[in-house]
């Protein structure tokens, strides 16, 4: 059985995954996404890999390579459909709502005037994000009409076409933290609180200065997190939730979840659990 890991760069997570596989007696072949050359029409050989753990940090490369390898019959975790839905916040919100998962009220506007109309419905403060993006990049809490106009003008003047799709969401009052739950297969293996700090501002992302602490995986958290991936292929996900006054709500699902700050505080070797699952799926 030939297993591989696909990546853009060797992040801390990718190194942990490679090391975990080694400890399990599996040497993962390396697929560096930027070095791949894909022949689409004249395939001369059988698939080179039985399964690929997709860890590309580049969403565009990840989508191309995942689609390509799946077309050869290779198992890719996570699958293309997962990346497509999770990588687009509009699709994620639609699917969460369809699945009956509590999620903040959200609009997508395709032009500034429509974004202002969405703001009139949501009220201030609100949260505005690009539909595609990560690490809380360009995620703004908009407190009033002036701030909205400034953010819209910046995106119109400097943004790429994708950034001119405005995803506007009700602002959820949360207790200075949110939750990341790690779903592996059909199980929630661990969860963390992500706390906002002086450095991160209102944002909780640990890559932006937020801090992590252990969150107990309660029945409620587990059940909600599994429902939040019920419309996705079985795989490995990071579900983001907020504790609102009315209960927990899900606002994002990540298909290439990071975990470097989460294993130490939860005591769960998240990378190893991912590798264990990946190998078991490859053997199915």
């Amino acid at each position, binding site marked *: 059985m030939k297993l591989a890991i696909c990546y853009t*760069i060797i992040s801390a997570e990718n190194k942990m995954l490679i090391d975990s596989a080694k400890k399990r007696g599996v040497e993962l072949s390396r697929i560096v996404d930027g070095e791949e050359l894909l022949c689409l029409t004249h395939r001369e050989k059988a698939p080179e890999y039985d399964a690929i753990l997709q860890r590309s940090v*580049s969403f565009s490369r990840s989508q191309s390579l995942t689609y390509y390898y799946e077309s050869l019959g290779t198992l890719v975790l996570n699958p293309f459909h997962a990346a497509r839905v999770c990588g687009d916040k509009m699709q994620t919100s639609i699917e969460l709502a369809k699945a009956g998962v509590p999620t903040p009220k959200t609009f997508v506007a395709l032009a500034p005037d429509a974004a202002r109309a969405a703001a009139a419905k949501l009220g201030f403060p609100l949260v505005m994000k690009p539909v595609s993006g*990560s690490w809380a*990049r360009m995620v703004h809490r908009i407190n009033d009409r002036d701030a909205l106009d400034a953010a819209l003008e910046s995106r119109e003047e400097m943004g*790429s076409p994708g950034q001119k799709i405005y995803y506007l969401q009700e602002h959820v009052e949360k207790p200075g933290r949110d939750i990341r739950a790690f779903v592996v297969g059909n199980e929630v293996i661990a969860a963390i609180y992500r706390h906002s700090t002086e450095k991160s501002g209102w944002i909780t992302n640990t890559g932006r200065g937020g801090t992590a602490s252990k969150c107990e995986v309660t029945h409620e958290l587990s059940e909600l997190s599994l429902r939040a991936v019920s419309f996705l292929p079985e795989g490995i996900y990071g579900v983001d939730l907020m504790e609102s006054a009315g209960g927990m709500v899900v606002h994002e699902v990540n298909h*290439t979840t990071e975990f470097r700050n989460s294993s130490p505080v939860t005591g769960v070797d998240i990378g190893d659990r991912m590798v264990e699952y990946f190998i078991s799926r490859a053997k199915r």
Partner: protein
Amino acid sequence: MTNAECPECASSISLAANAEIGEILSCPDCGTRLEVRSLAPPKLEKAPGVEEDWGE
């Protein structure tokens, strides 16, 4: 352990025995973010900047 040269300041940088192609490190002398591009021979290049579509 092998050494590679920083492409920015020409310092000699030690690569760990388990270094991987694609690994990101910082030059201890000039602070430049570097990417391991080759192990044999060891070669470092300036690391790519974060792109708009990077994330989790």
